[in-house]
């Protein structure tokens, strides 16, 4: 088997995550889709690491995970705050900043 298959898998997962971000309205689901995209990227990084034969890719994937963790914390806090004031977790309801 060719390691390139992991990259194909990664590309598919990323595209699915992107579509999810575009079609879902529940902010938490949107957020989960973003996590999926991040993971897809991580997978490709690990695969690159393997193809290149050094560990830098894994280190970067590690950093991505840490940053993603921080992002999740903040993102969920923001969703919670919005929910508290607007009683809604739909990204479409937050559309006041417009023409």
């Amino acid at each position, binding site marked *: 088997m060719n390691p390139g298959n992991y990259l194909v898998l990664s590309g598919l997962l990323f595209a699915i995550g992107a579509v999810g971000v575009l079609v879902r309205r529940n902010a938490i689901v949107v957020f989960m889709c973003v996590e999926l995209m991040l993971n897809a990227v991580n997978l490709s990084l690990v695969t690159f690491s393997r193809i290149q034969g*050094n560990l830098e890719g894994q280190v970067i994937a590690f950093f991505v995970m*840490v940053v993603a963790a921080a992002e999740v914390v903040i993102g969920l806090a923001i969703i919670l705050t919005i929910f508290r004031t607007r009683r809604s977790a739909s990204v479409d309801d937050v559309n006041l900043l417009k023409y």
Partner: protein
Amino acid sequence: MDPHLLAAAAPITSTSGGEALTFWIIAPIAVLGALGMVLAKNAVHGALLLVANLFCVAVCYLLQDAPFLGFVQIVVYTGAIMVLFLFVLMLIGVDSTESLVETLRGQRLAATVLGLGFAGLLVFPLGKVIKGQPAAGVADVNKAGGGNIHAIARLLFTDYVFAFEAVSALLVIAAVGAMILTHRERTGPKPSQRETLRRRIESGAVLTPVPGPGVYARADSADQRPALPGGSNGLVGGAPSELGPGGGAAGGRGDDAGAGDAGDGKAPSGPVPATGPGAAGGAAPVGAGKGSGL
């Protein structure tokens, strides 16, 4: 993705048949999990499907000689982060299911087309480029570094020490930020125990603990009848009617609704005993309780 770069890597390892087998089992599950998450109507289902997907990705890490990341993925992602997601989901309301009717005209179609296009763009040229391109593999590097974890640790604390420090600072900042974001400013004075109690009594809520699930009783009080099947309290026309079975189910549903609507300010009306004028007897103990409570 650069073919020259790929060509430059020395062909050291070829993948084993076991890895291929595992991959071909894991990869469809991962894709299905991802698709399921996007398509799931219920957010909790979506979260669980994401867990499955992340688990598959973790397996992929393991397959590619990245055990550290694989286990970190399982512990941090499928463990901690997804728990956080579920926690927030529960906090917001699991049953606030989202309508699947698209409100933005053409959004779904455009998203699908663009998503497919993007996937095609990523997959097909890639598949063409990587066909027959062997990989260097990291097994040797791992071995040279005294194992994957040691090797990564060496990198982290030597070459990437500043990035590491910056990221740790970021984590702390994120934690503080989350606290600040979710912190509620107290606008009035902190209510004393006395005021809390008074408010609770004046609201007419049940003072005593609510009976446990699975019983017909709606209150621990002896003068309260159990609910009738269908959730009514059996008070018709102001006159108390006979006790009947099935009140437990109604009470249970009422409790669920109460939990689900925790935030919307509506007090659970089902189990409240003293709602009608005929329930004067029921109200009396409350009044007495009020009197004695003070």
